[in-house]
C-alpha cells in the first residue's frame, strides 16, 4: 500500500502541474488542522460548536441603539456564522436550532447595538476578533482585489480577443469584406435596385432557413 502511494506521488511530482496541486492540498490540510474542527462524519457538515468567541465593545456614554431591528437583521446578514455552515448569522440562527454559535454571535450583536455602535463599528469588531472570514464576502482590498476583479477583467480581455478573432476571420473573407457590412453598396455595382432587392431577399431567406 505505502509503496504504491509513494510511487504514485513520485510519478506525479515530476509534472509541474502536480507540484501546484500539492501546494493547494497542503494549504487545505493546514486549513483543517488549524480550525481544529470537531469532525463528525455523520453530520452534514463539520459543526464546531465551540467556534464562538466573545466580541465586545464598551458601550458608548449615554448610549442609545442606532439600529432598528430590521437594520440589525440586515447587519446580521453580512456576518458569517462560524459554526462551519455557509450561512450568515441571521439565517443560521433562525434555521438550525442545534447551532450554538450563531445565537452567541447574535447576542454579541445585540449587546453592541444596545451600546450605541453603528453597523460598520460592529462589523469591524467582528473582523477584529475572527478575521475576514467573519464577512460573507472578502473586502475589496489587497490580495482580495484579485478575487473581485479577475473574472470581470478576464471577460473583458476575452471580449477583446473575440473581437480581434472576428476581425481576422473577416479579413480572410475578402469577397464579403468588399461587399461591406451593410450589404452591397449600390454605387459599386451596376445592378438595378430591383435586382439588389431580390438579392437581399435571397440572403434573408438564407438567414432564416
Amino acid at each position, binding site marked *: 500500500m505505502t509503496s504504491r502511494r509513494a510511487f504514485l506521488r513520485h510519478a*506525479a511530482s515530476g509534472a509541474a502541474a502536480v507540484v501546484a496541486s500539492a501546494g493547494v492540498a497542503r494549504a487545505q490540510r*493546514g*486549513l483543517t488542522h488549524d480550525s481544529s474542527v470537531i469532525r463528525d462524519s455523520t453530520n452534514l457538515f463539520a459543526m464546531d460548536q465551540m467556534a464562538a468567541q466573545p466580541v465586545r465593545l464598551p458601550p458608548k456614554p449615554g448610549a442609545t441603539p442606532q439600529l432598528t431591528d430590521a437594520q440589525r437583521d440586515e447587519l446580521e446578514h453580512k456576518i458569517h456564522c462560524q459554526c462551519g455552515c*455557509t450561512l450568515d448569522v441571521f439565517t443560521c440562527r433562525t434555521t438550525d436550532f442545534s447551532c450554538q454559535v450563531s445565537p452567541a454571535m447574535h447576542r454579541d450583536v445585540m449587546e453592541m447595538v444596545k451600546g450605541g455602535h453603528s453597523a460598520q463599528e460592529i462589523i469591524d469588531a467582528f473582523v477584529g476578533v475572527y478575521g475576514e472570514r467573519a464577512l460573507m*464576502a472578502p473586502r475589496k482590498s489587497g490580495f482580495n482585489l484579485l478575487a473581485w476583479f479577475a473574472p470581470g477583467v478576464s471577460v473583458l480581455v476575452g471580449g477583446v480577443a473575440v473581437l480581434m478573432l472576428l476581425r481576422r*476571420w473577416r479579413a480572410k473573407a475578402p469577397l464579403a469584406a468588399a461587399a461591406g457590412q451593410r450589404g452591397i453598396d449600390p454605387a459599386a455595382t451596376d445592378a438595378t435596385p430591383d435586382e439588389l432587392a431580390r438579392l437581399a431577399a435571397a440572403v434573408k431567406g438564407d438567414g432564416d432557413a
Partner: protein
Amino acid sequence: MILIGELSLWVALLMAVWSMTASYAGGALRRDDLTASGVRGLYATFVMVVLASAGLWTALLSRDFSVEYVASHISANMPNFYIFTAFWSGQAGSLLFWALILSMYGTIAIATSRARNRELVPWATGTLAAILVFFIATDCFKANPFTRLDFLPADGRGMNPQLQNPGMAFHPPNLYLGYVATAIPFAFAVAALFTRRLDAEWLAVVRRWALVSWFFLTIGIVLGMWWAYVELGWGGYWAWDPVENSSFLPWLTTTAFLHSIMIQEKRGMLRKWNVVLVVVSFLLSIFGTFITRSGVIESVHSFAQSPVGTWFGTFFFLATGLTIYLVGTRLRDLEARAELESMVSREAAFLYNNLLLVGIAFAVLWGTVFPILSEWWNGNKITVGPPFFNAVNIPLGLLLLALTGVGPLIAWRRASVDNLKRQFLTPAILGLAVAAALLVAGMRALAPIVTYALCGFVAGTIGQEFYKGVRARQAIHNESIFKGFIHLVGRNRRRYGGYIVHAGVIMLFAGFAGLAFKSEHDITLSTGQAFEVRDPYGRQWRFVSQGVSTSQRPDRVVQAVGLETFRDGKRLGLIAGEKRQYLDSQGNELFNPSTEPGIRSSAKLDTYVVLAGVRSSDVAEMRITFNPLVTWVWTGGYLMMIGGLIVMWPQAERRRAQAGYAAVLPPRPEAAELAGV
C-alpha cells in the same frame, strides 16, 4: 451475494485494465482482434460492476451491519426506500455508482457507434476503460464499500435526516448521470486527437452525449435547488456552496459547447475551441465529484471524507497533462478555414455566448477556490459567499440573457440592418413595455427591472419565432394552430426545442430576480397569539399560532408549530413548521435535530415557515419568509427539461423535406417539358 459483489469489483478492475491495454494496443498496432477483445473487456467490466453493485445493494437491504459501509450509512428501522438510496450516500458507494454509470454509458456508446466510427473505437474504448480503472481502483484500494468490521454493531449510524427526502432518489443519480456523461465526449475527443481524425465524424457522437450530460445535469441541479429549498430550511435554493458551484461548472461549459458546436457543424470553424470545451467539461465533472466526495472545501455536502484526495488529484492532472499534450501536438490538424462575412452575424453572437458562459464558469470556479488561494498566499482566511457571486455573476448573467434574445434572430453569415429591424421591433417594444409597467407599478430596484425587461424582450423573440413558424405552416398546410404548433416543433426539434429551453431560462431568471423582494420576519409566538405583516405585494397577512405539538414516529420524534394563516382577511389554512429528532431502532438519538419547513406556494409568492426553536411547551420561535416567484424557478426547470427532451429525441433519418416546403415547389421544368411533349 455480498461476497460475489466484492469479488466482482476486483474482477471488474482486472477487466478494465485489460480493456484499456488491449484497446490502446489494438489502436496503436492496428490489430482489430485486440480492439475487439478490448471492447468485449469493456462490456465485461460493465457486467462485473453490475454484479458488484447488486452485492452492495444486497448488503444494504439485508441490513448486514458487519459491512462497514452499511453500518455507517443506514439504521435498521429506516424505510427500504432510503436504504436503497444509501448506495450513493457515502463515498465508497458513490464511487461505485460512478463506475456503474460509466461502464453502462461506455457500453451503450461503443455498441451504438462501433460500426460508424471504426477508427475511433479503439482509442475511445481505451480511454473509457482507463477512466474506469481509476474509479474502480480507487474503490478497491482507498474506499472499498465491502470492507468488513471486526465486530457486529447492534445497529447502524443511520442516514442524515436531511438526506431522507424523496429528492435523495433523484438528485444524486441525475447529477451523476450528467457528470459521467461528459466522459463519453471526452473519450471520443481523445480518440479523435490520437487518430488525427478531427473531421465531422466524431461530432455526431459527441453532440449526442453532450446533450445527455446537459439534460441530466439540468435535472440534477434543479432538483438539488428544490431539495435544498424544501429540506434545509434556510429559505433559499442556491447558496453558492462549493458543491453547488461544482455541479454548475460542467453545466456551463457543456451549454457553451452545445452552442458553439453549431458553428462547427455549419461552418467548420472553432474546432480547437470545441475540443477544449469537451475536455474542460470532463475535467470539471471530475473536479465536481472530487469536491463532493472529498471534503476538500468545507461545505454542506462534504459529509463523506476520506483520503481519496491524492488519487483524484493525480488522475486530474494526468488527464489534464495528456489532453494538453494531445491538443498541443495536433494544433495544425485542428486548423480550420475560418472566415466570416460580417461582425453582426449569428457566428459572432455564439462566440459572445461562449465567452459569457465560460466567463461565468471561470468566475464561479475562481470564487470557489479563492479562499484556498488566499490562505495559501498570505494566510488570510476569508469567506467567499453569495454577495461575491451575485455581484460578479449578475452582470454577466444579464448580458447572457440579452444574447439569448439576440442570437437566434440574427442571420448566419451576415445580418442586414433591415433584417435586424424586422426581427427586433416587436420584442424590443415588449421589453420596454415591461420596464415601463414595472416603473408605473412602483418598482425602483434597477437589477430586477433590467432583468424583467430582458425577460420580456427574450420572450418576445421566442413568441415571434413560434408565431411566424405556425403562421407559415397554417398558410402552407392549412393546419389548425395547435396542429401547426406540434408539427412545427416536431419537424424542427433542435431549433424549437432549443427555444423551449430558452423559455425555461427566462422563467428561471424571472424567479431569481424575485429574490430581490424577499422579506424575512423573526418572531416568537405563544399559543393563540397573532402576527400581522405585509408581503412584498402589499397584501396583509395574519398568522395565528396554534401552539406546539409533539408526536412520536417509529424512527423520529416530531415537534411542530401550526400557524392558522389569513391573507387580506381570507382564511388560507394551516402552515406547519417541524423539528425532527431521528432515532435508531434502539431509541438512541441520531444526528442533530433537523428542520422541516412549512411551505405554502402560489404563482406569486411562497410563504415559508421555519420552526427555529421551542422555548416552553407553547412558545415557539420561528422565521416567516416571503419568497416571491419561487414556483417560476421550478416551472422554468420543467420547461428546460421538456425542451431538452425534444432536442434529444432521435429525429427520423428521413427529414420531411424541411418542414414541408417541397410541397409548394413548382414541378421540375424537365418534367413540365416532358408533360408538354
